[in-house]
């Protein structure tokens, strides 16, 4: 049994129904999906028991009705486990994971900037990437705002400072 299959089996044993659509896409790539409530348990288990000690990044995306978050964590820098979760667009709140992975703070700031996800418990969600005069409540990676609209908004919102 390869290492990937072993990890997959352990995750299935531990979480059973809670973990959905788990698959090995190719060697060293595992994708899985969980509900928001279970996310932290899965990550904690992966970190403490399975040895996934490196977080590569957090990807945020706009799925239409919901916002998707993908946590990419790595085991010995070789096997990448991508755990997906969804949060509603009108109440984009999720609990932070900086207590598990300290460097996640900066990725959470990035996702907060670009998609407006609020990470409960992250002490520093100040703008990281967007300019100081960025208009409020405009999140560039959401699909409901087009490039033209965004440029117009920036020109209106900018100027002060």
């Amino acid at each position, binding site marked *: 049994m390869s290492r990937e299959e072993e990890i997959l089996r352990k995750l299935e044993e531990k979480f059973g129904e809670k973990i959905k659509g788990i698959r090995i896409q190719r060697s060293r790539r595992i994708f899985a999906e969980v509900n928001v409530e279970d996310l932290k348990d899965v990550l904690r288990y992966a970190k403490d028991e399975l040895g996934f000690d490196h977080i590569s990044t957090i990807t945020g995306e706009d799925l239409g009705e919901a916002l998707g978050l993908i946590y990419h964590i790595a085991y010995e820098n070789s096997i990448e486990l991508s755990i997906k979760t969804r949060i509603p667009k009108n109440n984009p709140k999720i609990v932070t994971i900086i207590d598990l992975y300290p460097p996640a703070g900066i990725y959470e700031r990035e996702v907060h900037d670009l998609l407006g996800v609020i990470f409960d418990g992250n002490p520093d969600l100040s703008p990281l990437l*967007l*300019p100081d005069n960025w208009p409020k409540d405009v999140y560039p990676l959401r699909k409901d705002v087009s*490039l033209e609209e965004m440029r117009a908004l*920036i020109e209106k919102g900018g100027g002060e400072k």
Partner: protein
Amino acid sequence: MMNISSLLKWARRKSPWIIHFNTGGCNGCDIELLAALTPKYDVERFGILLKGSPRHADILAVTGPVTNQTKDRLLRIYEQMPEPKYVIAIGTCAVSGAPFWDCYNVIGGVDKLFPVDVYVPGCPPRPEAIIQGFAKLFKKMEEEER
């Protein structure tokens, strides 16, 4: 009086000090501009020195498309430079903003903010091209009253 002004023009042409500012580019033009200072190209031959303080500089060399966040900073540096001052836009990004023309955080080329004297296109321009840009600028210094 004619002689003094031509002497000044000569001095200006022979002693152009530059300040470099990256407004949000990819570093490609920056390393080529820096490579122009190093032994193989050595622009100090023409008296060009890279200065850190805008107060000491004659030429503002801008690389990269202007982003929203650097706009104010760039304007301030331009205003801090003493007259007569010249601007040289290095790389296609600084010339027109391409290939980031439609990115939401990019305003466009440098000439949206203040007049540019010489454009050096290229992605990135070779150090030779940058030196030629400077040569064009020297010619302009000679012909133009400022």
